[in-house]
C-alpha cells in the first residue's frame, strides 16, 4: 500500500485560489512565479531565476509576508530526474516570526549556466550558505563578496555533492591557506591564528585575527576541519540507516538530532509515532537540552577561567547520560529513536532515573546560578559583550537560545508544537540586550523550563506501544521474526528495501538545543533519500561571530564563542 501522496499531485494540478502569499507574489512579481505547491503543509514557491533576489526582498519586506528569519539556503542536484526540466535547483527556506509561517522558495538552474544572483545583500546569513552551495555543487552566486570553498579543503577538485561526482576519488590535500583574512600590506597589526588547535576552540575552529595589541581589528573564520559530508553519506543510506549519523551532528545532545530526523521522515511519510513514544522522546529531548546547555555554560565559564562551575555542572550531565544508557545502552551515540517511534521501550526504572537526573540537574543549576549569575567578574565579562540586535539576529538566521537572547521569542516548541509539546506548560525566556549574558540567562532559564516539561511528561507518560504498528515502517518484534514467516519476510524486506516514502520534499524542523534544527528531505520514492540538507543552527550562529568580536578584545572573542555554543560536528557536518 503506498503512502498517501495525493497532496502533491493535487496542488500541482489544481488552479485553486492561491494562498495570500502566492497572491502577493503574483501581484508583485508578474510572470516571475512559476509554480506554487503545497505538500504535507509545506508551502513551496518556484520562481524564475531572474526574479530570485526580488522575490527574497519581497518576502522579507512585504508586511503581509514578513519573512525576516533566514533559515536555510541549499542546492539540489536533479540530474537524471524526469520531473524537472533543469538540473539544479536552489532552495531557500524562510520563516516569519509574526505570522508563524515557513516558506520555501526555489528556482531552477540549468547545468550549462549554474549562476544566480546572490542574496547576501538581502540576508546577512546567506553568505556562508551560498559558499556552501558553491563548494558542494558549483553554483556561482553573482555579486557574492567572498565566493570561496567553505567546507572542503581549498585544494579540493570538483563539487562533491553533485550526483556525478566520483565518490571513490581520493585527494591528497595541499597546504592549508596561510591567510584567510584579507589584510592590507601596510597594516600595523599582527595576524594570529586562533585555532584550530587552541584550548578554547572546542572542536576544531580556526579564526584568523588581525590584532592591534589586545584589540581585534578584523576576524575571518575558516571552517570545515571536521567536515565529512554527512549529506552525501545520507544519499547512500536508507532512512533509518541515517539515524546513527545524526548522533554525530551536535554531539552534545545527540538524541535531539535523531528526534528531529525521525519527525522529518514521519512528516514525509505522513505518519505519527504513538503517544508513548512521543512522550519519551520529549523527556529525552528535554534532558538532552539540559545536557547541551550544561556543556555550553560549563565550557563557556571554563574559558573565562572559572574551572569549578564546569565540574559542578557536569555532574548533572552524568545523571542524564545514565538515563540514556539505561534506555539504549549507549551514552553518547544513542541512536535510540526509530522512524515511527523508538527502538525499544524504556526500562522499568526510567521514571526513577529521570527523577534522579532532574534533581541532580536542579541542584547543579542552582549551584551554578549561585557561582555565576551574581558574580561581579563573570557579569562584567559577559555584559555588553557580543551584542546582536534582534533584526540582525533574524537576518543572520539565528534561532534558539541565541535568538531569544536577542529578544525574539521564537521557539519551535511553542510556535509549531510537535511530539505533543502543546500538552506541556512551559515558558519561553527572552533576553533584552542580546549580549552574552542574556544568552547565558536564557540558557539557565531554559534548563529550568525543560525540567518542568520533563516532570509533566513523566507524570502523564501514556502506556501502549513505542513504535507505530505499520509494516512498511516498523520492524516486527524479534520473537515474531523467529517464529513466523510473514514477520521474517517483513523484516527481510524492510531491512533490504528500506522504507519507501512517496516522492516529494519536506522541511522537518524541531527546536534543538542550539536552535531550529531543520532537515530538508527530497525523496524520489526510493529507499534512500535523494537529498538531505541539514539546517545546522550553529552554522548561522557562527557566521555572525566575526562581526560580534570585531572591536573587542581577545578575551571577548573567547567569552562570545562559548556563549554561541558552536559545535564542530554540526557546523562542519
Amino acid at each position: 500500500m503506498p503512502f498517501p501522496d495525493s497532496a502533491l499531485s493535487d496542488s500541482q494540478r489544481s488552479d485553486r485560489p492561491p494562498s495570500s502569499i502566492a497572491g502577493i507574489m503574483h501581484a508583485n512579481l508578474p510572470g516571475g512565479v512559476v509554480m506554487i505547491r503545497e505538500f504535507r503543509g509545506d508551502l513551496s514557491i518556484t520562481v524564475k531565476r531572474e526574479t530570485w533576489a526580488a522575490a527574497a526582498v519581497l518576502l522579507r519586506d512585504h508586511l503581509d509576508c514578513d519573512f525576516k528569519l533566514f533559515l536555510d539556503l541549499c542546492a539540489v542536484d536533479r540530474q537524471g530526474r524526469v520531473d524537472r526540466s533543469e538540473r539544479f535547483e536552489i532552495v531557500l527556506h524562510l520563516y516569519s516570526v509574526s505570522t508563524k509561517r515557513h516558506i520555501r522558495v526555489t528556482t531552477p538552474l540549468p547545468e550549462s549556466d549554474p549562476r544566480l544572483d546572490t542574496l547576501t545583500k538581502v540576508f546577512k546569513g546567506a553568505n556562508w550558505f551560498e559558499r556552501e552551495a558553491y563548494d558542494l555543487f558549483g553554483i556561482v552566486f553573482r555579486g557574492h563578496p567572498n565566493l570561496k570553498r567553505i567546507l572542503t579543503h581549498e585544494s579540493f577538485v570538483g563539487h562533491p555533492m553533485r550526483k556525478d561526482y566520483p565518490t571513490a576519488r581520493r585527494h591528497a590535500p595541499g597546504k592549508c591557506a596561510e591567510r584567510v583574512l584579507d589584510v592590507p600590506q601596510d597594516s600595523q597589526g599582527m595576524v594570529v591564528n586562533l585555532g584550530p588547535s587552541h584550548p578554547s576552540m572546542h572542536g576544531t575552529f580556526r579564526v584568523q585575527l588581525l590584532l592591534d595589541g589586545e584589540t581585534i581589528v578584523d576576524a575571518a573564520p575558516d571552517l570545515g576541519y571536521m567536515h565529512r559530508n554527512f549529506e552525501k553519506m545520507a544519499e547512500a543510506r536508507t532512512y533509518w540507516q541515517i539515524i546513527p549519523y545524526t548522533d554525530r551532528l551536535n554531539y552534545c545532545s545527540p538524541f535531539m538530532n535523531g528526534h528531529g530526523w525521525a519527525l522529518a521522515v514521519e512528516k514525509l511519510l505522513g505518519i505519527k509515532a504513538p503517544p508513548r513514544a512521543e512522550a519519551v522522546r520529549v523527556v529525552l529531548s528535554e534532558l538532552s537540552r539540559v545536557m547541551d546547555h550544561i556543556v555550553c555554560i560549563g565550557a563557556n565559564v571554563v574559558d573565562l577561567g572559572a574551572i569549578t562551575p564546569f565540574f559542578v555542572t557536569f555532574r548533572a550531565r552524568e545523571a542524564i547520560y545514565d538515563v540514556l544508557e539505561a534506555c539504549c545502552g549507549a551514552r553518547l551515540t544513542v541512536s535510540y529513536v526509530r522512524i515511527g517511534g523508538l527502538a525499544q521501550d524504556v526500562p522499568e526504572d526510567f521514571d526513577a532515573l529521570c527523577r534522579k537526573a532532574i534533581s541532580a540537574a536542579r541542584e547543579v543549576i542552582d549551584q551554578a546560578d549561585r557561582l555565576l549569575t551574581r558574580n561581579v567578574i563573570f557579569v562584567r565579562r559577559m555584559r555588553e559583550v557580543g551584542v546582536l540586535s534582534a533584526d540582525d539576529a533574524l537576518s543572520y538566521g539565528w534561532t534558539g537560545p541565541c535568538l531569544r537572547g536577542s529578544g525574539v521569542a521564537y521557539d519551535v516548541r511553542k510556535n509549531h508544537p510537535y511530539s505533543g509539546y502543546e500538552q506541556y506548560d512551559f515558558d519561553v525566556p527572552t533576553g533584552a540586550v542580546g549580549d552574552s549574558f542574556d544568552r547565558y540567562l536564557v540558557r539557565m532559564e531554559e534548563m529550568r523550563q525543560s525540567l518542568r516539561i520533563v516532570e509533566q511528561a513523566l507524570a502523564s507518560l501514556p502506556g501502549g506501544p513505542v513504535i507505530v504498528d505499520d509494516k512498511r515502517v516498523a520492524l516486527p518484534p524479534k520473537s515474531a521474526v523467529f517464529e513466523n514467516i510473514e514477520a521474517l519476510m517483513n523484516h527481510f524486506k524492510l531491512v533490504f528495501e528500506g522504507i519507501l516514502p512517496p516522492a516529494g520534499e519536506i522541511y522537518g524542523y524541531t527546536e534543538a538545543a542550539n536552535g531550529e534544527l531543520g532537515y530538508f528531505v527530497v525523496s524520489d520514492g526510493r529507499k534512500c533519500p535523494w537529498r538531505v540538507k541539514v539546517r545546522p543552527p550553529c552554522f548561522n550562529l557562527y557566521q555572525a561571530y566575526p562581526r560580534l568580536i570585531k572591536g573587542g578584545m581577545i578575551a571577548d572573542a573567547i567569552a562570545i564563542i562559548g556563549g554561541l555554543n558552536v559545535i564542530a560536528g554540526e557546523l562542519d557536518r
Partner: protein
Amino acid sequence: MTASSPLPSYVPILVLGAIAAGFAILTILFSHLIGRPRSTPAKSATYECGMPPVGTAHARFPVKFYLVCVIFILFDVDAAFLYPWALVFRELGIFGLIEMALFVCILGGGFAYAWKTGALDW
C-alpha cells in the same frame, strides 16, 4: 649595616644570588644533558594553534604598552620617595605631611591628566 655584625649586610644577599643562579644554571644544564633532543622541523616550528604562522611575532605594538611603562616609571619614582619619607615622617611632623601632600598633589594632577586623556583605558 648593623654595627654589631662583622659581615657587611649585603654579603648574604650575594651568597643567596649565587645559590639561586647556580641552581638555575645547573638545572638547565642537567636537564640538557639527560633529555635527548630529537628535533624535527615540525617539532621546532613555532606553535600557532596548528597553523603556519603568518609573519613574525616581532611586530610593532600599540603605543599604549609603552605608555603604561612610562607612567609606571614616573610613579615608581614617586614610590621611591615615599619610602624614605615614611621612615622619618614622624620627625618631620606637619611639615613633612604638607611637603609630601604637595608632591603627591602635583603628581596627582599629572595622573588626572593621564586618566582624562584615556591613557589608562584600553
